[in-house]
């Protein structure tokens, strides 16, 4: 197995190596996470107390919009692709991804797309300020000039995601080592394959809707303009047809990560492997028929509301199956609580809490009281932060020894975990209360009755922000000065990457496919 690789900046610009590309995605996503996080700090600083102290409402709307766009498209999604790149070839015994050059392009589009998006902050009229969901006609007729750059940026990110998804599917379908049948795939690979199908199905729909936005703005169409025979609500239908599967795109790989880590630290096989595969596929399929649960207040006929309510509540069933299977994996196992396990356990608990608020939101007649309030903000931050992000964090701690050959400091990792645990709950749990008490979303100022919980949320947010710096330092110290890692750093770990590869994994691995029994 080879370890030669080019050096210097050319290495990174031209690399077709899945490990290099995986690392670039992960670092890029972390940088975007900090950028999006900085915007969250601006939001929480303004919301720390009633009154307009720091920013004007228009800039505040730019911050909420950009925070959402950067986190969804720049932090969460690329971080999952980074994990896919590093892990999928190693887990299936392949030497690299199926389409290594396309892999390079998939990555390098992103810095360009995000430079474009972020530069809109400095354009006349400011950055997009219509929410990451960019409803028409606020975004079409009333959007700032930078809206067109936003559309171009979204197209670029979409192309990157679609190419990445093609790569994953072709790799997993065609490059498994002999003996690695589909039902022997590590669950992380399964969840990514299913995610990849979701991506190729819905990213083009996003491309379609932003193209329609562009033609409405400049080429005389009236898709979303009632004056021309169009309908603003149609925008919402097309957007959410993308948007709902999108949120499953963001979480399914994290389900996969947690399904690798919990068995390792329980020293017990994953409970119900095939159910886990079928449950993930069910969630993905159901995700296509629930989109209008984001639109209960738009004036949908009752029949529609009933259908979408019931279909959405149904998703709780396969999701519940997954949660129970993780619990059953731990049950009667032999548990230790290293940092990856701590983050994974927190994932299960806190994602479930996010799932509970999701079931509540699904119930249309009460959704009328929750919709567009901080209750929704609490819900999706629970499933995204202690959900997707904790999943990625767990993955980083778990596989860092394999990637770099160095171990992180376990005490630091635990401190990072407990800081995250305290601050993530301090930030987002109070939002359930402010939402229930009546605080709408996307407002820069509020009545006194919401003040106490907003203060707590802001304090939590500042702490959470600082905690990311702690995380960064922990990882950098590990990479530079960490203790040498074992091949099988975790005695309960399983899979080709642990059983058949040294730590760090060499630059080229599995040039000859391994035999899998």
């Amino acid at each position, binding site marked *: 197995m080879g370890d030669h690789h080019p050096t210097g900046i050319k290495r990174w610009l031209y690399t077709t190596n899945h490990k290099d590309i995986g690392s670039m995605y992960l670092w890029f996503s972390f940088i975007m996470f900090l950028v999006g996080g900085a915007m969250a700090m601006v939001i929480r600083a303004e919301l720390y107390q009633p009154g307009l102290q720091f920013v004007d409402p228009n800039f505040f709307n730019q911050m909420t919009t950009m925070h959402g766009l950067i986190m969804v498209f720049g932090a969460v999604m690329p971080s999952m692709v980074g994990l896919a790149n590093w892990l999928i070839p190693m887990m299936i015994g392949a030497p690299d991804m*199926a*389409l290594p050059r396309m892999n390079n392009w998939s990555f390098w589009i992103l810095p360009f797309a995000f430079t474009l998006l972020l530069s809109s902050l400095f354009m006349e009229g400011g950055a997009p300020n219509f929410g990451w969901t960019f409803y028409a006609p606020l975004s079409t007729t009333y959007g700032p000039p930078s809206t067109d750059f936003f559309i171009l940026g979204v197209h670029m990110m979409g192309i990157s995601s*679609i190419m990445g998804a*093609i790569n994953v*599917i*072709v790799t997993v*379908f*065609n*490059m498994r080592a002999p003996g690695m049948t589909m039902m022997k795939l590590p669950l992380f690979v399964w969840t990514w394959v299913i995610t990849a199908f979701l991506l*190729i*199905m*819905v*990213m*083009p*729909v*996003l*491309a*379609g*809707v932003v193209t*329609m936005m562009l033609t409405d703005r400049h080429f*005389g169409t*009236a*898709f979303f303009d*009632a*004056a*021309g*025979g169009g*309908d603003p*609500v*149609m925008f919402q*239908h*097309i957007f959410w*047809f993308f948007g709902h599967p999108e949120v499953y795109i963001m979480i399914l790989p994290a389900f996969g990560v947690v399904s690798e880590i919990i068995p390792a630290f329980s020293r017990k096989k994953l409970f119900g492997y095939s159910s886990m595969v079928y449950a993930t596929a069910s969630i993905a399929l159901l995700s296509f028929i629930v989109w209008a649960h984001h639109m209960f207040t738009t*004036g*949908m*006929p009752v029949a*529609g509301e009933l259908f979408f309510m019931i279909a959405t509540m149904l998703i709780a069933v396969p999701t519940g199956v997954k949660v129970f299977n993780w619990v059953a994996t731990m049950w009667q196992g032999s548990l230790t609580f290293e940092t990856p396990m701590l983050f994974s356990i927190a994932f299960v608990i806190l994602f479930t809490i996010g799932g509970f608020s999701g079931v509540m939101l699904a119930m249309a007649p009460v959704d009328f009281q929750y919709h567009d309030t901080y209750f929704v903000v609490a819900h999706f931050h629970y499933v995204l932060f202690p959900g997707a992000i904790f999943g990625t964090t767990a993955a980083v701690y778990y596989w860092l020894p394999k990637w770099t050959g160095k171990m992180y400091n376990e005490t630091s990792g635990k401190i990072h975990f407990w800081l995250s645990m305290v601050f993530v709950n301090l930030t987002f749990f109070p939002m359930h209360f402010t939402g229930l008490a009546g605080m709408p979303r996307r407002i820069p100022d509020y009545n006194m009755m919401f003040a106490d919980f907003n203060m707590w949320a802001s304090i939590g947010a500042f702490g959470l922000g600082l905690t990311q710096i702690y995380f960064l330092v922990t990882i950098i110290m590990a990479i530079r000065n960490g203790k040498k890692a074992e091949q099988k750093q975790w005695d309960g770990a399983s899979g080709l990457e642990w059983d058949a590869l040294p730590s760090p994994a060499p630059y080229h691995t599995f040039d000859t496919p391994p035999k899998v029994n």
Partner: protein
Amino acid sequence: MTEQMPQDSNKKLIIRLGAIIGGMFLFAFALVPLYNVFCDITGINGKTRGQALYQDERIDKKRVITIEFLTNINRGMPWEFKSTVKSMKVHPGELNEVRFYAKNRSKFDVIGQTVPSVAPGQAALYLNKTECFCFDQQPLAAGEEVEMPMKFYIDADIPDDIHRLTLSYQLFNITETAKVASVATK
């Protein structure tokens, strides 16, 4: 990777995936007419249909439906716009007329477009307009006023639980877009 077979199967798979991607992109656009067809068939969303014909309609004298008329004006539309009657009581199947008054009280020529919307949404299926100013663009010179007729009948098989329809017209200023369109077609 120099073996022929894996590259062939890669190509095949990529082409299939590409087809799905292309298909889904077109699907996004197809959602537009699909949405309209769905609204048309089910009357959902309160969108009324195009011009209807009044022919041999059975009049149900036993039922009386109240139809209310609302008017509203979108941003930047300098016209007065109101219906001459607030509501009418009609029999299903009966052809009726209601007149709407519009005045362009600005100093500029303006082209307007009215967009109808019906509540409850399902009732839109049963409202048939044989003549409506909402079918066309409406140009009014500065200071000009006009009374515009709207002829309609309500389907005799409107469900029993609907007793009242609200027909709302929103008037939009489309002078700019109409100008662009006319330049484009020259």
